[in-house]
């Protein structure tokens, strides 16, 4: 039995499937790939799969991970070929390797947020850079209910520029198991400091996209 980590992207229309849908989908894809994946024992046997970080519905990612175990020695190259054949175009496998660290050692994740809004002005990047100088209070949903809190301690870095007619934000957010920050809070906070107001969601109107770009460990290296 060998532990194997699979890196993949979640893009396009598949950004709209929920975490639960993704787990079910991957489970079926692994069956089809026929790579000798290890099943849980017991009453309801299913491929044992552990995902690194959940992703909000509507968010794309270039850096998703899940762990499985395969029976016998693992040939990562062969597994990657088998998965590439089966995984859909919008869920491409990018790497297969033997894991170096445990998922609980994930420290942060980097996101690209692109906002296209009629109320954006050229001064937006400057406003965003000043945002961090005073408390950024958001109503955060936690396991015990909703509470107001300053989300700044969870924002490792945030930079922005005007690009392609919108505001491109690159931000690194805390992603360790205790202090995970959903990038949607940053979208909300930025919208407030820039006084964007409501998004006009008509086709061709205002919109934003969020893409998870990379996951990092405690030393700031890409997590593996």
């Amino acid at each position, binding site marked *: 039995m060998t532990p194997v980590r699979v890196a993949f992207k979640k893009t396009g*229309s598949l950004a*709209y499937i929920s975490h639960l849908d993704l787990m079910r989908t991957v489970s*079926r894809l692994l069956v*089809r790939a026929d790579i000798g994946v290890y099943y849980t024992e017991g009453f309801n046997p299913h491929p044992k799969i552990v995902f690194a970080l959940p992703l909000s519905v509507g968010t794309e990612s270039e850096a998703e991970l899940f762990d499985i175990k395969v029976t016998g020695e693992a040939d990562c190259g062969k597994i990657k070929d088998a998965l590439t054949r089966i995984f859909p175009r*919008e869920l491409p496998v990018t790497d297969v390797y033997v894991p170096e660290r445990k998922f609980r050692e994930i420290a942060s994740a980097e996101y690209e947020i692109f906002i296209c809004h009629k109320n954006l002005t050229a001064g937006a990047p400057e406003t965003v850079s000043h945002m961090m100088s005073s408390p950024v209070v958001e109503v955060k949903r936690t396991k015990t209910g909703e509470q107001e809190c300053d989300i700044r301690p969870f924002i490792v870095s945030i930079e922005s520029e005007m690009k392609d007619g919108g505001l491109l934000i690159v931000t690194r957010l805390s992603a360790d198991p205790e202090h995970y920050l959903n990038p949607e809070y940053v979208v909300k906070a930025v919208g407030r400091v820039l006084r964007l107001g409501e998004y006009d969601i*008509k086709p061709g109107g205002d919109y934003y996209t969020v893409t998870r770009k990379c996951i990092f460990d405690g030393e700031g290296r890409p997590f593996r």
Partner: protein
Amino acid sequence: MDYKKYGSILRGVSKPARYTGNEQGQTVKDKKDVRCRFAFCFPDTYEIGMSNLGVRILYGALNCEPDVWCERVYAPWVDMQERMREYNIPLMAHESGDAISEFDIVAFTLQYEMCYTNVLMMLDLGGIPELAADRGEDDPIVIGGGPCAYNAEPVADFFDIFSIGEGEEALPELARLYIKMKEDGTYSRQAFLFAAATELEGFYVPSLYRVEYAPDGTISAFEPVDERVPVCVKKRIVEDFDGAYFPVDPVVPYTEVVHDRIMLEVFRGCIRGCRFCQAGMIYRPVRDRSVETLCRQAEEMYKNTGYDEISLTSLAIDDYTCVDRLTDELIEWTNKNKVSLSLPSLRADSFTKELMAKISGVRSSGLTFAPEAGTQRLRDAINKNVREEDILNAVRIAFEAGKTQVKLYFMIGLPTETDEDVLGIPKLASAVIDEYYKTECRNKKRPPQVTISTACFIPKPFTPFQWAEQIDKDEFVRRQRLIADNIHDRRIKYNFHDSEVSFIEAVLARGDRRLGRVLSEMKKMGACFDAWDEHFSYERWQKAFELASVDPDFYTRRERAADEKLPWDVIDIGVTKKFLLREYEAAKQSRPSKNCREGCSGCGASIYGGDTLCRKMKEQ
């Protein structure tokens, strides 16, 4: 739906994955190779539509034609409908994202009457004129099919054509006719409808029939407007069922749907002939698929989908002649591949220890049986040939296998039902509880639980009860209360269907063309998703009946005379009216009939050729 164009909208609605499509197994064709575009609409949510085996089959069968492209369309949930109206987004097909108004043929499968308001909502969202009479040369041909098409009169005004019976051969023929007429220049809307009705078999074009009514409201005349149009439209069946097309590479949804598993269609039709059951009559004659074909299909589907569950579907799976051999062969590789096997339609009288052992292999839940009625007298009247001892025997087998939960399905309001029959329902549930404690090697860790559910009987066309009256709404409530008041055991749970929904369903089931106005009024009032409790409004239906000057009681609260012209007489299902009347008389005398395998009752379905049970019975 294009996720790029509509991203902001998708983010704001519930379960956006039901609109984004791009699933594995979908068919995408190059438009320049396509000469007939088919939009196959399921008038309910994605989760329900994707679970329908009939749609899967027809989608695949149509797409086998290289120049036909069939796409899927589902009813957008109310939050999405609102956005679509607000931003002028038309109803579009899943695969291409093109508006359904651009298609050649827009097909609706009519699986239950309560979806009719959704059909009108979808036509409206799609920008297709509601009334067939108002459609022009550039509008799509709107066709309907499925079980409700056997009496499609309530929606006759909204459809150009109905496909009667099994569609896997008929629909490709219709598409071919369309292509031929388009290419040889003979196509016009009217010419196509006429050709479908006269040159092909199994297509009913309602506009080619004139209906007149007598002063008492019954139909006085129902005849074709042209002598070349058939007086009766004969349903289509697939004669070579074993060799018939079956999709082994189905669309696998990303988001969870109701039946998310491999579905094997073991046989079509049912040997039983329960007198309330429309499916048992309209799908005759009985045709089997061979064990070899089924096992091959199962393995191919497993490889193509990765599903971890196989369900053997049919009307009563244990009536399959080779059920033991099939389950033996399937179980061998399902266990190896950790796939579970489920048999959703078990009959209590043929349930065996061996079957029990097979279905408790990998994953398993409680067991469900449908005695339908509480006493032997009433079970004989409805021809549900299950005895109390069969039910107790079946639950004992389940208890011995460690099960503690049993579900029992019943109907109330069946013709000839008395309070004694109603009280038989809680009595039977108590007997099941007693059986648990009588079972020696039972699972003692958990107390037993029996859930009884009662549906309200709805007389359906093409059943022996098609002439019967439905009992009053309040009487349904009284009988439901009678059951509830006679359960004195916390281990017995009781669920029942809403009698108001059942009343409306009964009106539509045996309705005529005059109900079209009622549905139009419902549409105007914004009705949709009437099959969903939270969107069903009895008051709205009452208002619609009033506005359309239609008395709903006319359709439910009277016994029809044997010689009354029925709205569905225009359809011929093979099973004769004479047989149905004979069965109705037998019901009144609480006299059961033989099932097809015990002996032929001469229902009439044997006129169909092919490898049918009727043929085998004759050969014996």
